[in-house]
């Protein structure tokens, strides 16, 4: 298992192959398509992330002291982005998630190259994941 820093490094490497932003999007779409399905039980209104213009459902649960995220989205690029975040943050301890700096977002350029509504969405996604981690830690 890689730690967060290693996972971020791996993502930066993957993205660095592509010069053109269209190719990077192609890759994000790929990741979106590969995102494992969320259980239909968890695709409920309570799990919708506010701030996204497309609808994103995010579910979190504890497994062996680590937070496991699953998600879905109606738009594929949003799904690709949440897939990236899950790739980095899932199966980590709550504290690790809460404290994660996620510098790779800037490095990949996701923030600048996604529209404000999406970039709000990205911010909202990260916030929500940290909130879940905190809540699960409290109730654990």
């Amino acid at each position, binding site marked *: 298992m890689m730690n967060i820093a290693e996972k971020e490094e791996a993502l930066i490497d993957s993205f660095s192959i592509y010069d053109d*932003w*269209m190719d990077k*999007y*192609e890759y994000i*779409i790929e990741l979106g398509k590969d995102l494992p399905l969320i259980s239909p039980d968890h695709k409920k209104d309570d799990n919708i992330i506010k701030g996204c*213009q*497309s609808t994103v459902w995010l579910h979190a649960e504890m497994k062996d002291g680590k937070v496991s995220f699953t998600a879905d989205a*109606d*738009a*594929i*690029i*949003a799904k690709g982005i949440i897939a990236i975040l899950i790739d980095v943050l899932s199966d980590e301890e709550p504290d690790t998630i809460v404290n994660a700096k996620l510098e790779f977002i800037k490095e990949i350029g996701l923030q600048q190259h*996604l*529209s404000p*509504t*999406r970039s709000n969405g990205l911010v909202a996604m990260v916030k929500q994941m940290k909130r879940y981690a905190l809540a699960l830690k409290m109730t654990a």
Partner: protein
Amino acid sequence: MALDLNHIRNQFPILSTKVGKYPLVYFDNGATSQKPRVVIDAINRYYEQENANIHRGVHHLSQVSTDNYEKARRTIQEHLNAPHEHEIIFTKGTTDGINLIAESFGKLLTDGDEILITEMEHHSNIVPWQMLVERKGLTLRYIPMTNLGELDFSQLETLINEKTRLIAITHISNALGTINPIEDIIKKGHAVGAKVLIDAAQSLQHMRVDVQQLDCDFLVFSGHKVFGPTGVGILYGKEKLLNEMPPYQGGGDMIKTVSMSGTTYNELPHKFEAGTPNIIGGIGLGVAIEWLSGFNFEDIQQHETDLLEYATDALSKIDGIKIYGEAENKSSVISFLIEGTHPYDIGTLLNQQGIAVRTGHHCTQPIMEFFDIPGTIRASFSFYNTKEEIDQFIKALEKAIQMLR
């Protein structure tokens, strides 16, 4: 005579900018228009050489500013063919104008009165009426829509009745492009004694609107959509009606005398223009309207119809496309969805290729509810757009679809 597109485009600095490595193709004119050089220069000159607060000032700059501001009012009056200068009220925009009417004209309404709007209104022409009817216990009715995105007049006889006090209707639907038969509705409204408000936010940039010929009671629009600055708009109202209405906001300029025991209000247009107005907004809008009125509107309409047909043809060939809004009488706006893709994905990938379109509900959620969709992709053209740009758009769209499927 055809428009000289090169000459026109050269007047808009932004049209030669790039998005990343792609030239900008600006198809979000329904949201806001770009600004010609004359407007930008006027704003510049004002701030560099003429800036001052208007009215009541004895000094030179204040005089120049006041003259320019009042000249803008007259330019707009002439363009709309309004009978009187003081029937032109400067507002913040369409939304502000509609709220002014809802609040002020609304005070003249009483129990049992009805307001009629349509199912295809922009939120700005829905919410103020919902708020008003809730406040005063009135009834709000909606003219329904057909699958083509046209108004359904089958029940008009009952919808427009002797209780109807106001009909507020959009001239052109921002989401569907439908051009509504407002002359007809104005006549039918007047026949039962109702007043009629035209939301012209989407029409003045495409066609000439003559308020006397239409005989509408109110007409509102936004400066930023007709090649003018942001933060300014116009409310036209018939003198008699505006005189009957109580003031909206209170403050400087809208009063004649103020004392601690009470206040007397100023005359039109000042009665409805409280506080320091958007001076440069008004002046800039005047310049924009003057610039616009220099064109032959038949040429503009011919070119825009060409663009609409050209784009509709090309889009229709795309597999799985569904166009929303197929009215017979339609302006240069196309809303669509591509089967199996999400509008935001399409919008994002178009943007990566320099194409600016809008995606979402376009502030017309009832239309989206009607078609049972979350939103559309909307390409809206202005007369500075070209067929070459549509070609680029179609190419980029095909690429996006290929990536998403």
